[in-house]
């Protein structure tokens, strides 16, 4: 083996080890979920056959149909409204001349670092006094506010990368701010907006603490919340059914990830660096 091949061999060995370490828990619960109901596998043996009974039991027993629907409703509103508000703001910050831009931006920095675990108490009591506890709005509104700082930072950097000459040419021809944004800049922004959509979808889908404190009605639970109740419920204490339920909840994000994994990775890696 020459030097180059030896290096490649070591690289493959490292990545394969990492891959197995990452995948082991997933396969472990996949096998558990697919195992024969009532028969306990040890996690060290392959299942004797494939049974979908656990998936059916989890679906009907944990009201995951409503859970997935609730999550879907929350995600759609959070992502759409955040995208619109953040695009307008990022455009103004980067391309329009605004007085007081530095302090406004510094203000946004607070939201970027603030752990929302600290302020959920205030969310709960505000929503309670407005009579909004147990509604989709109590999940949608705070998550828009929390998503806005990152989204503005992310989109501002993307606006920055569009050459100035493009909007200046349109301005000389007399185009207004709105027309320049919609007709000239937005078409250039589509990849950045798509990546941001994917990230916001994932974060909103996976959100748990807010749902835990806001939602008491079983019919209003989001998918991760339904899963946590399901996993804690003694009646469905069977780990195989819980495993199947976990797969139901992970599935939507997994499917999007399979098709758009580059966007997830570049979004989180470069998104983090841009901050």
């Amino acid at each position, binding site marked *: 083996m020459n030097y180059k091949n030896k290096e490649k061999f*070591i*690289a*493959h060995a490292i*990545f394969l080890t*990492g*891959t197995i*370490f*990452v995948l*082991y*828990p*997933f396969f472990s*619960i996949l096998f*558990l979920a697919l195992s024969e109901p009532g028969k306990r596998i040890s*996690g*060290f043996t392959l299942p004797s056959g494939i049974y979908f009974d656990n998936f059916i039991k989890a679906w009907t027993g944990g009201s995951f149909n409503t859970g997935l629907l609730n999550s879907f409703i929350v995600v759609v509103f959070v992502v759409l*409204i955040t995208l*619109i*508000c953040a695009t*307008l*703001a990022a455009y*103004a910050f980067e391309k329009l*001349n*605004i007085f007081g831009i530095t302090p406004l931006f510094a*203000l946004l920095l*607070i*939201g970027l*670092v*603030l*752990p929302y*675990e600290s*302020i*959920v*108490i*205030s*969310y709960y009591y505000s929503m309670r006094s407005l009579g909004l506890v147990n509604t989709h709005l109590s999940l949608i*509104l705070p998550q828009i*506010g929390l998503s*806005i700082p990152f989204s503005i930072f992310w989109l501002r950097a993307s606006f920055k990368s569009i050459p100035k000459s493009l*909007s*200046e040419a349109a301005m000389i021809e007399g185009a207004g701010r709105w027309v320049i944004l919609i007709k000239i800049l937005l078409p250039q922004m589509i990849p950045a907006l798509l990546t941001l959509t994917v990230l916001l979808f994932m974060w909103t889908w996976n959100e*748990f603490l807010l749902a*835990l*404190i806001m939602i008491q009605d079983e019919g209003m639970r989001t998918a*991760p919340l339904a*899963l946590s109740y399901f*996993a804690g419920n003694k009646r469905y204490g069977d*780990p195989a059914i*819980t*495993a199947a339920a*976990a797969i139901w909840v*992970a599935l939507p*994000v*997994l499917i999007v*990830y399979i098709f758009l*994994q580059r966007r*997830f990775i570049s979004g*989180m*890696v470069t998104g*983090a660096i841009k*901050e």
Partner: protein
Amino acid sequence: MSNKNIYRPQSKFLYSSYLYIIPAFVFYILFVLFPLGDTLYTSFTEWNGISEKKWVGLDQYIKNLSDKKITSSIKHSFILIIFYSFLPIIIGLLIAGLMIRVKIRGMTTYRAILFLPQILSMIVVGISWRWIYAPKGPLNSGLDFFGLEDVSRAWLGSFDYSLMAVGLIGTWVMFGFTMILFIAGVQKIPIELYDAAKVDGAGAISEFFNVTLPNLRGEIIVALIFTVTLALRNFDLIYITTGGGPGTSTMIPSMFIYKKAFQMGQVGSASSLGIMLTLMIFTLVSLILITFRERK
């Protein structure tokens, strides 16, 4: 349009430009800044969530800081930083150091798999690991298989090992992210720098410390901020795996905030703990930025 604007189309200031930032700032003020201020105010009061708030000044902070359970929960958070942050960053750096010139097939697939723990709900991750750590789960079966029955135990139910067991889940979640981040960073370092180091007779180790490490400064800052913040917040994973137990052996501040505010009726105390957590995160992020900033 005046002539001036034709030559410098960017320079016109219009009050109506504020209309573009208003929607975003309305949401931001109502759902980030107002709750923060509200929490800060509540942190100076005694309140059970129902009666009138009673102003007590800094009492809640003093009580929290002298409560052994609270201080030990902060200590747990710092132990978790080792698992969530230091271990993944060291693993990531070592592997990135080995990958300077290596280009291999299948990198995209490896990357996609290594990144997987980042995209999943911590509730799903926690449930998977609850099974791994279960008394009759894969880990213990594996230990039994190798004749190590004495070592196997209910990992998440153990006073001595539960914090470490949760910490290792954090390592599992994070190491793929740091690896990908650092490998991407290493591949941006100009190869000439390494050639120059070679000419100077640098070995692999001095190459790592003199070329790789300084050039990854930006990535290291990002990885530190991202992982340290998550280690300190960390609510979902603790809630689903141990709930802070057994006893208070895996209790962390965010879990205490939840318990105090929503189960014990100590909203003022929970709010002051929330402000303390916020201050801790702001301080650590600033420290990371100051320590690793570019020295001119």
